């Protein structure tokens, strides 16, 4: 299959505002992006640590010029800042007249605005912000489409925590099919009470820093952030003269069809997604150097995803795998895109970042995650995984360009 070239990226999370910030923070291994809640107004402050960006939404709003009548929700602000960085790096190729697509992933959109507005709504008062419009999942992509000066294709994808990886996958397929020349794709989610209480209702939140792929793991630390990429076809690249950061060579999307909110013990859907992505990339499993897992640190996810990895890769050939969730939390829809950004910096710098806060092997698995950062490593092909409630399982292969 024709590779698709990544020529711009922007991302933010609790570890920093740029890919370089995040790279340095991951290398240091000391500074974790997991901390007590300080910004979000919730009764769960002091109970559940999160990967929170330590700036008030009102303060962040001042970073994004907005001539529209509606104030931006936190998710849209994070997304816009990431998109601005991505299009700058890609030298504004989206303005050169090709057919442009914008595909954005989100789980709950502007819920941070909606849940504030609903307090007034249920009390019979009219809230000063039009949260009914601002809170919609589609609002972020609409704002971005306006800001980009119009787009030829527009979609928001909401497949729970796999949303952004499926947004990037959708963009890759549109580009390969010749429907677009340039696409901007990724995803964003901000912390909000709705998701904290939703995951808490499943008893899936850890009260300590999470421990992915550890025998003692007991749940998620939620996080927030955004990551977006400028994607180009080979033909667009010849015209733009942009230097690709990496290539997307394979994408797989399958359903686990096991349970609405949990993954099958053998990770059936994840295995299929990884296998499809590797096949589409035309690679053998031995050529995969690094796996950036979904790795939420729930007992179910890590056992299933670990089993899936061991099922896809032969015994003794399991590539280094890690989870970034103990570094900046589970950023829900943004997690696949943030993993993609880290995968790109891994390829560009020859770094295999470590999985932090791990100490004890899982009895269910014969492998363990990488726990020491490896620099000057061979990183030619990276797999990104993302799963979401509803059985959604997706994988993507990033390759050195």
């Amino acid at each position: 299959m024709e590779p698709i070239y990544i020529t711009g990226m922007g991302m933010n999370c609790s570890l920093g505002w740029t890919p370089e910030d995040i790279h340095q923070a991951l290398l240091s291994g000391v500074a974790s992006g997991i901390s007590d809640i300080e910004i979000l107004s919730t009764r769960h402050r002091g109970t559940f640590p999160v990967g929170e960006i330590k700036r008030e939404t009102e303060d962040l709003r001042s970073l994004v010029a907005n001539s529209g009548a509606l104030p931006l929700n936190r998710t849209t602000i994070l997304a816009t800042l990431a998109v601005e960085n991505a299009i700058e790096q890609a030298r504004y190729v989206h303005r050169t007249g090709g057919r442009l697509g914008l595909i954005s992933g989100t789980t709950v959109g502007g819920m941070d605005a909606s849940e504030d507005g609903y307090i007034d709504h249920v009390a019979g008062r009219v809230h000063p912000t039009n949260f009914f419009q601002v809170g919609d999942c589609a609002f972020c992509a609409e704002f971005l489409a306006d800001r980009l000066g119009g787009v030829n294709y527009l979609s928001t994808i909401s497949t729970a925590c796999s949303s952004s990886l499926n947004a990037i996958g959708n963009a890759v397929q549109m580009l390969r099919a010749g429907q677009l020349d340039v696409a901007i794709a990724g995803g964003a989610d901000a912390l909000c009470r709705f998701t904290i209480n939703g995951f808490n209702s499943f008893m899936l939140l850890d009260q300590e820093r999470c421990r992915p792929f550890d025998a003692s793991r007991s749940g998620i630390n939620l996080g927030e952030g955004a990551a977006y990429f400028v994607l180009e076809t080979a033909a667009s690249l010849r015209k733009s003269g942009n230097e690709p950061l990496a290539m997307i060579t394979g994408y797989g999307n399958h359903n686990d069809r096991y349970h609405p909110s949990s993954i099958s013990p053998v990770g059936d859907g994840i295995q299929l997604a990884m296998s499809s992505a590797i096949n589409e990339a035309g690679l053998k499993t031995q050529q995969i150097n690094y796996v950036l897992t979904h790795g939420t640190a729930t007992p179910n996810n890590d056992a299933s995803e670990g089993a899936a990895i061991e099922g896809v890769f032969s015994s003794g050939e399991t590539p280094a795998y890690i989870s970034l969730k103990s570094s900046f939390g589970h950023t829900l829809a943004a997690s696949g895109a943030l993993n993609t950004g880290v995968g790109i910096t891994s390829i560009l710098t020859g770094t295999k970042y470590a999985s932090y806060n791990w100490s004890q092997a899982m009895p269910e698995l014969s492998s363990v995650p990488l726990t020491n950062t490896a620099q000057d490593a061979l990183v030619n092909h990276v797999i990104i995984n993302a799963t979401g409630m509803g059985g959604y399982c997706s994988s993507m292969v990033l390759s050195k360009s």
Partner: protein
Amino acid sequence: MQALYINGSSRIGALLSAPSFSGLAVADEPDYTEYLPKNSLRRLDRMSKFGLYTTYAALAAAQCEQPAGIIMGVGQTVSQILDEMVRKMIDQQEGLTNPTSFMNSLLGTAAGQIALQLSCNGYTNTHTQRGFSVEAALMDAVLQLASCPEQEFVVGGLDVTHDSYVDLAKNYGHFASRSAPQVERQIAEGAVSMVVSGVPGAHSKACINGIYTIFLTDEAINNWSAKELKQALFNGAGPCVDLVLSGRPLGNEAQSIYDRVLTEYEGNTPISAFKERTGEFPTATAHGIYLAVESLSTQAAGEVNSVLVINNFGDRYLSAILVTRP
């Protein structure tokens, strides 16, 4: 664009005789137990029921036992279950809420439920771009069928509305490009599922030959010309369809867009305003397509061979779908 053959379709929705701008047109719901076990119904949210019922009915019509994948478009993202969940969260001051409610409030849940019930481990996706949700889902199906056109996918559009949604619309206005508190809209709801393939089959009833979308930025609203639509769907040729199913709203929005689009057809081609029957919601295009398939199936060949479905949501989302005989 590779053609999409519609091999089976099913619809849940209202069929209105007298529109109203003040209330909600509730869908006529079927007997779900025709396809779903009674004991499973209480765990399913209304959107999942809509999706599951129409999927099973469309699969039956297409005589398809197992689709290769599920792609849904969900328009209104303030679902009833989300509304209830947020209210409970406020009432209980963030006390422990119901995990099933949280799960069902996620917009991708309906497609996931369909995949689970059908034991389908193929491609699954959910598009939630208001007035392009169904259009993006159809485009997604085109992409999936490009490599395996003989496969069959379930594609659909889902919208569930509720009284609280009507209250919100009353207080905060409908989605529109500009502040438009006086927009008149017959709020409705519904679902359509279609079984589609990339090649014609024994049960093919119609064929989607073109999908056109334009997101009208403030600048584009003034500058957009219907020539662009004509170029995209007809290579610039003149009106060459037998029927136009127009989504021109009953109220006062997006009228100038329809004026520009329909001028060429008026007097030459029958134009039927389908949202006068279905009401208004973001995935109404799917209902226009459903009615186009019905027209093609019930009219004699030679009378209606091609139908143009044009639809808007607010005055920023405009789409057109060309539906022909297979």
